[in-house]
């Protein structure tokens, strides 16, 4: 399973990268794609969500340690 999961992560990252590159870099020169504003909004939201999770995790751990 470790190998499957690892290669799965590689595949996911390749798919996201290919799709996003087509969307942001190729499309303006050429329309399975959302409006362009989402190309920024979605990564931004995902990034903020990630930061939120990291922050929550850290504060959870620190609170527990304190207790």
């Amino acid at each position: 399973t470790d190998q499957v999961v690892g290669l799965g992560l590689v595949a996911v990252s390749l798919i996201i990268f290919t799709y996003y590159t087509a969307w942001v870099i190729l499309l303006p020169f050429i329309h399975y794609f959302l409006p362009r504003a989402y190309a920024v909004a979605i990564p931004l939201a995902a990034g903020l969500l990630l930061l939120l999770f990291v922050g929550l995790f850290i504060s959870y751990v620190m609170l527990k340690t304190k207790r």
Partner: protein
Amino acid sequence: TKLAQWLWGLAILGSTWVALTTLSCQEVLWPLPAYLLVSAGCYALGTVGYRVATFHDCEDAARELQSQIQEARADLARRGL
């Protein structure tokens, strides 16, 4: 410091981007920071995934160690431990 190096790099990239942004090329240009971020994220995910997939499970080393532990126990007991 490494932090300062990163800040410098980001400042240079950022100011270049601002200078350029302020038709199809322009379309590509304005979401470029998001594109860099996503690419970096994909690179990170892909690299970590690849390294997890190719992380050696040292089964042989574990077996060898187990047999050496038996040997060590016997030898040490013989020496009076």
